[in-house]
């Protein structure tokens, strides 16, 4: 497959070209944040840093309509009503630009939930088929990055349609899927210099450094499950806000609520966070996860124990399991109180080794 070349000065023009055929979500700088925005004229896509939020929004919008309903009064007997339901409109084809390899891997983990585990979610499925990822390979690791702990890497190809590598004057674009190839078909082939630089980059990828052996993590988690003092200490700083879960590329929990005005309304699906006490609060007032400690435990457990125990390790028996975490580090970087999920996992491992 030939690498194509996208010159930095052509980035906006190329983005505009994509935006003609697709809904293009491109990262732009706004203050301290880098956010995905639907394409608008004069926009400057910013590929210099990982976006603040993951591109999950493209596949699983923060709120979406599951159905609409309308009540109609019976004119014969005004105390009687009839209800009519309507299905949501299908999604439009979308291209997401400027995500990172860790984010692209998140797509696989979302697939596990919405396509593979049991019931197929048709809304997600449609969006999933309709969405292409143009990923930027990472040149270096930030100090919150740990993609290599969970089976990824700064140039991991998993989940992407096109992978961009920074080279002199722009990007070498490598198509990874047929759809990705079509996306970059109009770009010129990369020149010899760019080809060479790309080859060099692929030959000696950014070295992420050593990663701890996490094979015991699921087991260690279960061993520590009932040690509430441990979880209390790990979670004492937690504010129970939704930063970690909302920015996460793999967190997929949602709430379903009805919103109505007058005789019409919608049933909405909205991102939810397991860090909130209301997440598991039952009508009776009983709450199985009553404290921050319980809730943080669930988040760590889901990512590093429940998910890996449900799905086979990609490397076969005895290999490192698949975690429901891509190591993007957003939950660490944006946490107001610097809760570090890496530290919690390491504490679990250390705790397990103590006699």
């Amino acid at each position, binding site marked *: 497959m030939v690498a194509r070349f996208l010159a*930095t000065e052509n980035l906006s023009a190329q983005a505009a070209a994509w935006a003609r055929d697709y809904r293009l979500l491109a990262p732009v700088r*706004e203050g301290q944040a880098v956010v995905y925005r639907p394409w608008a004229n*004069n926009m400057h896509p*910013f590929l*210099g840093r990982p976006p603040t939020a993951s591109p999950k929004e493209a596949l699983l919008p923060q709120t979406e309509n599951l159905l609409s309903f309308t009540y109609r009064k019976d004119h014969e007997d005004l105390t009687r009503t009839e209800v009519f339901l309507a299905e949501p409109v299908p999604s439009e084809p979308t291209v997401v630009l400027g995500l990172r390899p860790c984010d692209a891997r998140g797509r696989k983990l979302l697939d596990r939930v919405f396509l593979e585990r049991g019931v197929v979610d048709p809304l997600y499925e449609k969006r999933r088929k309709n969405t292409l990822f143009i990923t930027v390979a990472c*040149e270096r690791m930030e100090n919150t990055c740990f993609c290599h702990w969970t089976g990824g890497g700064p140039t991991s190809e998993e989940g992407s349609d096109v992978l961009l590598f920074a080279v002199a004057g722009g990007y070498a674009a490598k198509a990874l899927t047929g759809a990705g190839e079509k996306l970059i078909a109009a770009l010129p082939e990369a020149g010899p210099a760019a080809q060479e630089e790309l080859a060099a980059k692929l030959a000696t990828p950014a070295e992420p450094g050593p990663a701890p052996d996490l094979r015991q993590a699921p087991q260690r988690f279960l061993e520590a499950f009932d040690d509430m003092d441990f979880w209390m200490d790990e979670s004492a700083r937690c504010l129970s806000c939704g930063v970690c879960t909302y920015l996460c590329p793999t967190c997929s929990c949602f709430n379903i609520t009805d919103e109505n005005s007058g005789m019409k309304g919608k049933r909405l699906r909205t991102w939810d966070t397991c860090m909130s006490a209301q997440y598991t609060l039952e009508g009776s007032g009983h709450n199985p996860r009553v404290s921050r400690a319980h809730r943080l435990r669930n988040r760590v457990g889901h990512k590093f124990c429940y998910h890996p125990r449900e799905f086979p390790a990609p490397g076969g028996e005895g290999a490192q399991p698949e975690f429901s975490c891509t190591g993007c580090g957003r939950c660490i970087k944006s946490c107001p109180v610097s809760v570090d999920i890496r530290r919690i996992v390491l504490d679990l491992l250390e705790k397990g080794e103590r006699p």
Partner: protein
Amino acid sequence: MPDMGRDFRIIGFLCNWCSYGGADAAGVARFSQPTDLRIIRVPCSGRVDPMFVAKALLSGADGVLVSGCHPRDCHYSEGNFYARRRLEMLRRFLPILGVDEGRFEYVWVSASEGSRWRDMVTKFTEKIHDLGPMPRMMEPARTLCSLEGMLGQSLAQPDMASGAALVLPDWDKPAGSVLTPADIAGMGAEPGAKEGGNG
């Protein structure tokens, strides 16, 4: 009464004991009044949570008028004294949101002041007509606002606020290069961000 064209949406929160009676008196006296006002009766002006006003203004009202008993006449002795403090702070707060403080007013009208009520409603309605429709969050932005140099440094967005030089580990530019506010302006709606600054 002057013809003010189409109706705007004005919400009135009226206390049960004085102002609702005042409005009723105006009606019984068959005073001619503007028809923009929708009245919601509350037990006391002290019942009016400033959030009632904020929610009304942000959800489709063009103006909100609160009216209660005159100070010292409150049916519950003190309700309107508390209301006065809260509503005054709300009035002073609204402009930071980009909501003209004229869109909200609180007055005292007793049950016998039918003609005073008529005057209040007429004047307030005229004021809202002068201000025009309330801007809406759901509409696209109307202004192109240059953020550069306009805000103090304190908005935790020094790059945006002061146009200060921003050195980023950025592949879009050679290492150590300077990003201008134009790079940062980001959203398509902000081409107004000026070049340069002190960068």
